[in-house]
């Protein structure tokens, strides 16, 4: 039955090459923890991706309750935390995922760095990876404001003050992010929400796609 459905679709859209390009590749011995336990260091990239998927899914569910205006943002998070079934767990996953993803990214970066895996021909992929790191930090930064509690508000205040100190572009950057040269308020919250939920995820998905396509093209780096 399933085979017939598959064949029916495949005859019309030719899907086999699509998933075979993704699924059909080798895993060399030196990256396989089943053969060399020390190869667990190769797991950090995959775990980063896994936590990113957790972040995307839990984030999507959080937006079902979250309200991004300063009157209701905190209340909506409080409601989510105390009243909504499993809301505390979903928010907990998103909260801890944000930290775990940074840790995993850090470990993955160190693995690639100390193995010299960024050398020719993988220079571009390294650079894309560093950009992913920056985007992830940006996601952490913007997401931190969204609950609109004291911690969030004052952390953003600090960050924007640091940004303001940058010569030439500092004040413009602050005004762009905060929506006002002086006030951290309603505009800031909506902008951070838009950046957190639309702009940066779009950039992240594009960069991740490039990252993965390049890995597939170049293959994983050889043993040291």
């Amino acid at each position, binding site marked *: 039955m399933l085979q017939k459905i598959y064949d029916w679709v495949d005859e019309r859209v030719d899907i086999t090459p699509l998933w075979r390009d993704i699924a059909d590749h080798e895993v060399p011995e030196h990256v396989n923890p089943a053969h060399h336990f020390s190869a667990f260091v190769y797991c950090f990239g*995959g775990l980063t991706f896994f936590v990113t998927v957790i972040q995307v899914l839990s984030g999507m569910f959080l937006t079902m309750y979250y309200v991004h205006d300063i009157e209701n943002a905190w*209340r909506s998070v409080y409601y989510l935390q105390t009243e909504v079934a499993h809301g505390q767990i979903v928010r907990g996953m*998103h909260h801890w995922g944000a930290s775990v993803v940074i840790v995993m990214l850090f470990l993955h970066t160190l693995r690639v760095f100390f*193995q010299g895996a960024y050398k020719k021909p993988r*220079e571009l992929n390294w650079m894309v990876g560093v950009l992913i790191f920056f985007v992830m930090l940006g996601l952490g930064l913007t997401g931190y404001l969204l609950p609109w509690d004291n*911690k969030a508000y*004052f952390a953003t205040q600090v960050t924007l003050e640091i940004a303001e100190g*940058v010569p030439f572009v500092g004040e413009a950057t602050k005004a762009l992010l905060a929506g006002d040269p002086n006030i951290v308020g309603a505009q800031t919250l909506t902008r951070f929400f838009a950046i957190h939920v639309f702009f940066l995820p779009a950039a992240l998905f594009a960069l991740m796609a490039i990252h993965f396509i390049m890995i597939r093209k170049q293959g994983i780096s050889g043993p040291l």
Partner: protein
Amino acid sequence: MKKGKGMKFVGDSRISADKERFIPKDYSEYPGKTEAFWPNFLLKEWLVGAVFLVGFLCLAVAHPAPLEGPADPTDASYLPLPDWYFLFLYQFLKYDFVTTVYGAVIVPGIAFGALFLAPFLDRGKERRPHKRPIATSLMLLGIISVFWLTYEAAAAVDWEEKAEENKPEPTSEVEIDTEHPGYAAYENSCLSCHGGELEGTAGPSLIGIDYSAEEIEEIAIDGIGDMPPGQFDGTDEELQQLAEFIVSVNEQAED
């Protein structure tokens, strides 16, 4: 892709009508114990992922995401701190010899710029860390500095006290019915310690307590914990009305 004459297509589309069966590639010719990703290795990854997910969920359940009180820009006593992964930068900027331009632009710019351009700075053929001492030692220096600065920033804060002082407090939305027959008894015997809206002053809040009317009657007479006995002074009927009043406010708060 197959090319040449004699190809058949599905309808007028460009999809080939000749279907080959999917035969996984044979990796036995590859060096070492190469394994196929699909499905062999993916199954193992899946299992590791499941274990990781269980651990992660335990973390999320055991330590719920913190939430402090709603943002109050007028709170001048609040100690502002960034999220933990920016603490190193925050700490670096706190030192007197670090100006904003130096600490927010030049040093992080060089550090992260070098990280971004690492493949072009470290151009040798060698990959082993000890064969490229400059790259390795600079990275180690960077890691140690970031860890040290983060530790310095985090050690200066009493996190438990900070969390304790900034607990989320939902605004009370109970309306006190002063016409309730039990209110007069509450006003006489309880209000001075438990507050005009049962919010608690010297004594704890009476909203959200898990006692039946009979238990409240007992507590009013016998006391509980730090509350001394004999606080209530009145008839049995008034005592009953008092307990009903406290229960009714609790029921209202739960709606």
